[in-house]
């Protein structure tokens, strides 16, 4: 049986990380990976650290505490910029998972099908990492580096995600495709944030998940939308060539070709929906 530390403060947690620990928060990825076997590793339970939890508005935008749950996010009063993330929060697992699972857990688990990641990418969020030596911030797009791989260094914890306040009015939305309703791993999903100025797209940030090892932004599409009229025909501007950053695979949930086709459909619908 390993150690189990449950610090109340961040400092205590960071001090503990002079040696390897498995970090536990919501438990929704931790326990499923340990079905039918005894847990022997050393555990650092960060769920009791109050400063890691909750959403706050800052001078530059918003801070989403690492152990904020999907349910808390879904119920938080936030501007339309966050609609996509809130819609994603309601599609993570079932209600029980939403009540326990955390946003930092979702990005650290680094599943290609992580439901929170496309929306957080579309928000251009930054990951705040802390260690005994200080803190650093890196874009989420640089944080997740591969399937189950992140930039997290030994001794570091994710303490928050940061979202900058956009220059213009922003709308956002999220769509998920699964083979059943509720409690389902995505076949494909997409999230968009569109900034609007004078009835035109001032900036667009778009990400697709479950169609590549790490969810991807689509810069060409973002570029193509910039300056376009913000109306229900926005979706018509999506072309297959915009999906070039994606590299979908065949698996039990769907074929690669199917994923490419439906990613296009999801994006068109999403843009029409957000502009409607």
């Amino acid at each position: 049986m390993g150690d189990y530390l449950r610090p109340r403060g961040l400092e205590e947690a960071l001090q503990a990380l002079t040696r390897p620990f498995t970090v536990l928060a919501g438990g929704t990825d931790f326990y499923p990976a340990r079905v039918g076997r005894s847990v022997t590793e050393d555990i650092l339970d960060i769920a009791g650290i109050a400063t890691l939890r909750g959403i706050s508005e800052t001078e530059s935008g918003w801070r989403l505490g690492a152990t904020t749950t999907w349910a808390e996010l879904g119920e938080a009063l936030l501007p339309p910029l966050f609609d996509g993330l809130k819609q994603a929060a309601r599609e993570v697992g079932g209600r029980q998972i939403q009540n326990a699972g955390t946003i930092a857990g979702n990005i650290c688990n680094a599943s290609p099908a992580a439901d929170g990641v496309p929306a957080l990418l579309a928000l251009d969020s930054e990951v705040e990492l802390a260690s005994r030596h200080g803190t650093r911030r890196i874009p989420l797009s640089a944080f997740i580096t591969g399937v189950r791989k992140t930039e997290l260094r030994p001794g570091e914890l994710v303490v928050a995600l940061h979202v900058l306040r956009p220059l213009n009015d922003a709308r956002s939305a999220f769509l998920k495709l699964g083979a059943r309703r509720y409690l389902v791993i995505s076949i494909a999903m997409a999230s968009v944030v569109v900034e609007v100025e004078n009835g035109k797209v001032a900036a667009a940030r778009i990400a697709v998940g479950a169609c590549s090892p790490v969810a991807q932004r689509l810069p060409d599409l973002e570029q193509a939308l910039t300056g376009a009229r913000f109306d229900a025909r926005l979706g018509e501007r999506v072309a297959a060539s915009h999906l070039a950053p994606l590299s979908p695979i065949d698996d039990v949930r769907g074929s690669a070709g199917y994923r490419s086709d439906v990613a296009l459909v999801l994006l068109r619908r999403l843009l029409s929906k957000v502009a409607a």
Partner: protein
Amino acid sequence: MKLEFTLNGNAASWDGPPVTRLAAALRDDLGLTGTKIGCDAGDCGACTVLLDGRQVCSCLVAMGQVSGRSVETVEGLSADGEVVAALQQSFLDHGAAQCGICTPGMLMAAQELVRRNSKPTRTEVEDSLGGVLCRCTGYGKIVDAVMDVVASAPVTAPPAGEAVGARIVRVDGPAKVTGRDLFGADGIPGDALWIRVVRSPHARARFELGDLEPLRRRLAAVLTAADVPFNGYGIYPDIKDQPVLADGLVRYRGEAVVALVGERAEVMAICDDEVPIAWMPETPLFGVDAAMADDAPLVQADRPGNLLLKGGVKRGDMAAAFEGCAAVAEGTFETAFVEHAYIEPEAGWARRIGDRIEIHATTQTPYMDRDEIANLMRLKPEAVRIVPTACGGGFGGKLDLSVQPLIAVAAWTLGRPVALVYTRPESMAASTKRHPARVRARFGCDAHGKLLACDVTALFDTGAYASWGPTVANRVPVHAMGPYAIPNVRTWGEAFFTNGPPAGAFRGFGVPQAAIAHEAMLDELADRLGIDRLEFRHRNALRAGDTTATGQTLTHSAGLAQCLDALRPHWRKAHEEIAAFNATGGSRRRGIGIGCMWYGIGNTSMSNPSRMRVGLSPGGTLTLYSGALDIGQGSNTIMVQIAADAVGLPASQFALVTGDTDLTADAGKTSASRQTFVSGKAAEKAGQDLRQQILRLANAGPDAVLSLDGATLSVRDGAEVRTIDLATAGPLMGEGTFDPPTTPLDADGQGVPYATYAFAAQLAEVEVDTELGTVKVLRIVAAHDVGRAINPTLVEGQIQGGVAQGLGLALMEEYLPGRTENLHDYLIPTVGDIPEIECLLIEDREPLGPSGAKGIGEPALVPTAPAILGAVHHATGVRVHRVPLLPHRLHEGIVALKGKSQ
């Protein structure tokens, strides 16, 4: 670590490793086994509790996180002095609990909602229950129960003589909604040793065991093939081909190889790679084509060509008849391995008592278990006692042995209680599956739409061991022409061994696979002749007086035409609505489909008797002794209803003893939709026998009215009332036996395979997203000829649950060894996938059955997939030849069709 928290409103303390799962602490340390474990991975929601008022999966919460917080479980739902809370009462009144394994989780998930919103909408209920899987109910009655929590209409108990046909609350319901019912993993003694099974990671391999002595020194025992006195079991008396522990050779991934026995923490701490097994993998055979190949290696050494069984039915001159057909349709249809996915994994414990072994385990078939364990252990059957626990869903999957042999052998050898609880991945890897099928069908009719000929060949992948393979291969040819009068028939079935998981019994024994083929043929012929699909079926429906392909003349109770009549108004109205919807254009298209079926009740051409007893003790206790196991379908309740009316006393006065092989007679297995018809008839006869004895004692006529008050039994015959003092006259015991009359089938499949058949027709309305390939089932209307509904609520529950499984078969369920061995990669429908299901009960009485009843368990599932697939065709023009119809497969079909039309 010692920690304090609030448990169901009271201060509680707990001590142990803080990484312990809350679910385990509740069950193992705090004695609250009402919280169930279905997967330990957050995939099923059975362990849902409230943590600070929020629903969570208690299998995902570390005890270290519970300190200082509030935990609420099913045991805390009812307030002091209350028998059950309003929510629990609503579950009882609506028949929302079937097997009951998901019920505590459902209740707690609902509690989070109704506490702040006592009149929730359907969407709110679905959002709240979306994380709890139920495999029995089809969710409809659960959703209704939650929506009606403040306005639940209480169910009243019927008086004497009026139990049959009444919607009485299930007799085991209170135990299920309070979490008191004990399932396989719930009653394990604290001093039991535990088993962990080491299983094969290979589908086909030879292996050698290394030196096990170091492990043996650490543990109570390490069991191998050599420790099993007779290391072979199987459903058929002459096919004992499956070893309890593999002996140098494994034939499927997940096969048991070594059993580690010891203290629970010790066996769980040993990793598979600490067990010295030298594997020599061989190329596995997957699928019937590989198994049938000329140079295919054998899966079973004594089975040439890997053939388990073949056979069929011939009637008339099929080949000549096709010559004269005005329209002929043909096609080939494939299905996958399908997992039962009962929410309760296999579990149980055994103990040795002197020279007897006693097994407490979840099962569908106590007497078969008893005889098989006796054979494996070289004991007399009387030396084995099976005490079935509550069964958290079976659907055919708990007809085969699972934990029983290993716990019995270990407990016998070690002289201590020994327990085994499968993990979810273990349950999925080790247990039987629905047979993958390839059904080639050809149907022909005349210009008026009268069916003339059919030719069906069904190939089945029976996996590594025979299990129920022969039952499937026998049953399908009898049913493969569908519930239609066709003069010229050839049907044929063959089953092949492969290195897939053993395919066994799963709700329908192969008939659901065959129905996908015959219903597609009926649709094609109807479309080709321009005849409405419902009317085409109506024209050809088997009716009383018709002769079946096996040469059996149906004398009564063939209600397919009535089922179709009942569907017709729904069918016509839906057609109009769908046409209007589709006229609006857009990427979503709606369609409607219809599926019909018939299903022989009980074993195919084999004796399958049931014996039941009804006793009246000197103290006035009226007891039904029923060996018919209730696996959620409700037989406990309907047996009491039937026996009550046969005796002439109220159902509410009955006590029930069920399952225990020491206390009840053999009522056969809970399979083949036979319990209502066969055991129900035996219960009726047992009740009538007891009544006769009472009437004789009272010297009363047949119309006498009985009443029981303590040990005093009053018999009112006309104006005269006689009283019997049971203290002196008792005990009385009535007994009844019934074995449905059948005859063997000859080489051409001619004979009487079943005494009676259930009939059904279902319609499905779907909406297809033609761009994404997704199918949403909008509505099912299910018309079932059940002979007589003993308890309409339970019948509806069976129909709705069967429909849900049929929907899963059609749209999402596919078991891939090594790939979908959990409940997040293997998908079963959630509350959000199941539409409104309207049940139309047709009661065309079967004279042989109790009060005219037949069966409903399997018939409920059979027509659903064909109806859905027919609706998809109606919506899109795509004829589906392979299920499950995953979104990418339908998308491919839609794209291909577009390509053709351009």
